[in-house]
C-alpha cells in the first residue's frame, strides 16, 4: 500500500519489485456483480459434476448414466421429490438457525447438539405424554419443549461468552457431544431391553398431507425461511447483530448492548435448531437416536457460509447439496459402487464450490511482462537491467493494482456508512 503522501516508501519499492518479478498477482476484489458470481458458481458446479461423472466412469459406470441417475433419484416419482424437498428443508432450517449467530461473528458450531436437544425434548414429550392428551395438543407441547431444549442448549455458551468471553467455538462443539451422551443415556433408561433402539413412538406423529410424509415439515420451513429473511434484512435486531459482527466497538459506540444482542441472537438460533429437532423427531423419524441430526448441524455451517448468510442463496445451496447426495446414492446403487461413493461426490462438490469462491473474492492477474522477459532472456537472472518499455508496462500494472488496494477500504467504509443510514431509517 502506498504511503499517504504519494511518495514511494521502502516498503512500496519492495512490493513493486515483488510484483514485477512474480508471474501471478492476486488482489482482493470487491466489485464483482452478483450475476457474475453466480456464473462462476454455476461453472464450478458443472466442473464438479463432470469430475464426478468421470470418477463414475473410472469405477465402471456410464458417463451419461451418471446424469440420468442424478435426475432419476430426485424426480422419478413424487416420493423422490418430496424426500429431496424434506432433506433440503431440514438442512436449510439448520443453516438458517446458525446464520444470525454467524452474522454476529459468534461461531456457533453447536447446531448438531442444539437440534438433538430439541429432538430429545420432543421425544420426551412423545414418550411420557403420548396418549394422555389429544394428538394436536401433544404436537404443540412438543414444539414448545423442543424450542426450549434448543434455546437452552444455545444460550449456555452465549451466557458464558457474554459474561466471561469464553471461546464459543470450543464450547458449542463440546456441547454437541454432551447432547449425544444425554441421548444415549436416556435411551438406556427408556429401552429396557438394552438394544438401544427406541423404535417408532405411536403418539405425536405429524399428520400426513395428501397421504405423503414430510409435507408439513416442508411447509413450515418455507414459512420460517421467509420470516428469517425479513428478520435479517428489515428488523432492527437484524441490523444490530450485523453491527456487532462488523465491529464490537462500533456497536458499543452507538449504544448497542453487545451481551444482550449475543444472548438474544443465540436464543433465536437455538430455538430454530429446536424447531429442526421437532421436525426431525415429530415429523420425520418419530423416534430418536444419537444420529437423528445426522451431521446436518455441520453441513449447515457450509451452507450458511456458501450462501453468504443470505437465506435465498442458502435455499439454492441446500437444494443442490441434498440433490447431489441423493443422486450420488442412486448412482452408487446403479453401478454397484462402494458405500462411500455418495460422500466422495458431495465432497468434490463442496470442494469445487469453495474453490470457486476464491475467484469471487480475489482477482488473479498474470504478469505477462514477466513471461515475455524470461522468454527473451532465455532464463537469465531476472534482476538484470530492465528495458524502458518493459519498465513502463510494469509501472502500469502496479498502478492498477495499487489503486485497487487504496479503493478497498474506502468502498467498505462506504458500504458501512450506507448500512448506518439504512439502520437509522428503519428506526
Amino acid at each position, binding site marked *: 500500500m502506498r504511503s499517504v503522501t504519494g511518495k514511494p516508501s521502502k516498503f512500496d519499492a519492495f512490493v513493486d519489485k515483488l510484483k514485477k518479478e512474480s508471474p501471478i498477482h492476486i488482489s482482493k476484489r470487491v466489485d464483482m456483480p452478483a450475476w457474475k458470481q453466480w456464473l462462476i458458481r454455476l461453472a464450478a458446479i458443472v466442473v464438479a459434476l463432470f469430475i464426478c461423472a468421470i470418477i463414475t466412469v473410472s469405477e465402471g459406470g456410464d458417463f451419461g448414466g451418471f446424469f440420468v441417475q442424478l435426475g432419476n433419484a430426485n424426480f422419478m416419482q413424487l416420493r423422490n421429490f418430496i424426500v429431496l424437498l424434506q432433506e433440503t428443508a431440514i438442512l436449510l432450517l439448520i443453516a438458517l438457525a446458525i446464520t444470525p449467530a454467524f452474522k454476529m461473528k459468534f461461531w456457533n458450531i453447536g447446531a448438531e447438539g442444539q437440534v438433538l436437544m430439541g429432538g430429545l425434548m420432543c421425544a420426551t414429550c412423545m414418550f411420557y405424554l403420548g396418549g394422555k392428551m389429544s*394428538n*394436536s395438543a401433544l404436537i404443540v407441547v412438543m414444539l414448545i419443549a423442543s424450542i426450549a431444549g434448543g434455546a437452552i442448549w444455545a444460550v449456555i455458551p452465549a451466557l458464558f461468552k457474554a459474561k466471561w468471553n469464553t471461546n464459543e467455538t470450543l464450547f458449542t462443539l463440546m456441547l454437541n457431544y454432551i447432547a449425544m451422551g444425554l441421548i444415549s443415556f436416556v435411551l438406556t433408561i427408556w429401552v429396557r*431391553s*438394552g*438394544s438401544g433402539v427406541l423404535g*417408532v413412538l405411536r403418539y405425536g406423529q405429524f399428520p400426513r398431507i395428501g397421504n405423503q410424509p414430510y409435507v408439513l415439515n416442508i411447509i413450515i420451513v418455507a414459512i420460517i425461511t421467509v420470516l428469517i429473511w425479513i428478520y435479517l434484512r428489515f428488523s432492527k435486531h437484524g441490523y444490530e447483530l450485523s453491527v456487532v459482527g462488523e465491529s464490537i466497538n462500533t456497536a458499543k459506540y452507538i449504544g448497542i448492548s453487545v451481551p444482550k444482542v449475543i444472548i438474544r441472537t443465540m436464543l433465536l438460533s437455538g430455538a430454530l435448531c429446536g424447531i429442526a429437532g421437532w421436525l426431525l423427531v415429530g415429523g420425520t423419524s418419530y423416534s430418536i*437416536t444419537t444420529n437423528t441430526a445426522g451431521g446436518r448441524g455441520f453441513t449447515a455451517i457450509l451452507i450458511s457460509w456458501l450462501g453468504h448468510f443470505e437465506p435465498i442463496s442458502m435455499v439454492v445451496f441446500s437444494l443442490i447439496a441434498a440433490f447431489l447426495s441423493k443422486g450420488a*446414492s442412486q448412482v452408487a446403487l446403479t453401478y454397484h459402487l462402494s458405500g462411500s461413493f455418495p460422500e466422495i461426490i458431495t465432497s468434490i462438490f463442496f470442494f469445487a464450490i469453495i474453490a470457486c469462491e476464491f475467484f469471487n473474492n480475489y482477482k488473479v492477474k498474470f504478469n505477462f511482462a514477466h513471461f515475455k522477459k524470461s522468454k527473451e532472456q532465455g532464463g537469465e537472472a531476472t534482476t538484470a537491467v530492465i528495458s524502458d518499455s518493459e519498465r513502463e508496462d510494469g509501472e502500469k500494472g502496479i498502478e492498477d493494482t495499487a489503486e485497487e488496494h487504496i479503493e478497498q477500504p474506502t468502498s467498505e467504509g462506504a458500504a458501512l456508512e450506507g448500512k448506518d443510514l439504512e439502520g437509522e431509517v428503519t428506526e
Partner: protein
Amino acid sequence: MKKRILSIVLIVALVASLTIGLAIGLTGCDDTPAAREVKLAKLDKTAVKIGLICLHDENSTYDKNFIDAMETARQNLGLTESQVVIKKNIPEGPACYDAASELVGLGCNIIFADSFGHEDYIMQAAWEFPTVRFCHATGTKARTANYGNFYNAFASIYEGRYLAGVIAGLKLQDMGYGEGGSKNNAAPKVGYVGAFPYAEVKSGYTSWFLGVRSIIPGATMEVTFTNSWLDETAEKNAANALIDRGCVLISQHADSWGAPTACEEKNIPNITYNISTSSKAPETYLGGSRINWAPYYEYVVNQAIAGAPIAYDYVGTLKTGSVELLPLGKNVAEGTQAKLDEIIEKLKNGTLDIFDLDSFTVKGAKLTELQLADVVTDDAFTPDTLVVENGADGLAFKESSKRSAPYFDLDIDGITLLMD
C-alpha cells in the same frame, strides 16, 4: 416503535403459520388407512425384483455377510444382476423408510432389511405398500403386527455360537488350561466384545460361553459393550482392555475388524462372527460361525414364485444350511473338526439342548418351568411367554422356538458384565 410492531408481526406470523400448518395437517389426521388390502401377486421368475437394505456397507462384516449371501442366492435362483438392488449405509431411521419406498419405486417386489433398528421403518413401508413383500432380519414384531406382508427371520445361530465356543474350549485345552493342564489353571478367563446388551447379543455370548464351558468347565467370561454395531476404535479398545484384564481368548459380536486386529497384535486367539478374519489375522484366527442368509432369500423368492404364503417367523438352522461354521484357522487344536462333527450331528438330530437347565445357573439357582421371556414385544418389555420345555435330556430353555429372533436375555453365573 416500528421495531416493536415489526417484532410483534413476526411473532404473530410465526405462531399463525405453525397453527395453520398444524390445522391443515390435522384435517387429514383421522383418515386412518382402514381400507388396506394386502394383495401379494404370484410372481413370475423374470418379474422378481429384490431390494436389500443394509445398515452399513462391505466394510462391516455383518453387512458383507448379507451382501455375499444375496449374490449366492441370486446365482442359485438364476436371477439376473438387474433383478437385485442393494442400498447400503441406510441408518436405522426414517432413511430406511425412504429407502424402502424408493426401492418400491424402482419396481422391487421383495424387500429385505438387515438391521434390528430398521424394523419400525420397514413396517411403515410395509403398511403403505401392501403389494410388496417385506422381510426383516433379526426383528421381533411381524407375528404380533400381522400385516400380511411383513415377515421376520433369524437363525438358530446360538447353535453356531456354541460350536464356535467348542473350538475356543479345545484351543484353551491345547494352550494348557483346564483341569490337569500344563498352565495349572482350571479357570481361565475369556473375553467378549458385544454391541448392545439385549437378547440377540446376550443369547449369542451365553451360548458361546456354554460351548467353551462344555470343554473347560471352570472357565469364566467378561463381557463389554460398545453400544454401537460398527465402531472399529471402540471394538479394538474394548478387546485390548479385556486382554489387559487377563482374558486369554476373545470373541465378539460387533461388526468391525477392531477386535480381530487387536487380538492379532497381542497374539491372543480370536473367535469371530459373520466372515473369516484370517486375511488380516492369520495367526490368531481360530474360526467362527455365520448365518448364511442365502437359504432364507431363496425360500422367500420361491414362495413368492409359487404364490405361497411366507412364514412370519423363519428360523434357519444347521439343517437348512442357514447356520454355518467358518473355515477353521491354521492354529486350532488338533482334533477340533472331529469334535465339531460329533456335536453337529447331535444338534441336527436333536439330542443336545444348548440351554439345558443343568448346564447353567442364574444367581446361583437353576431355572424352573415357570421361566418367562419377553417374546411378544411391548413398550415395557414384559416377560410374557413360558419358554422352558422338555428337551432331549430333561428341561431346557427353548431358544428361537416361540419366534425367530432370540429372547434368551438372562445373565448366567460365570459371566461378568463390565458396564461403565
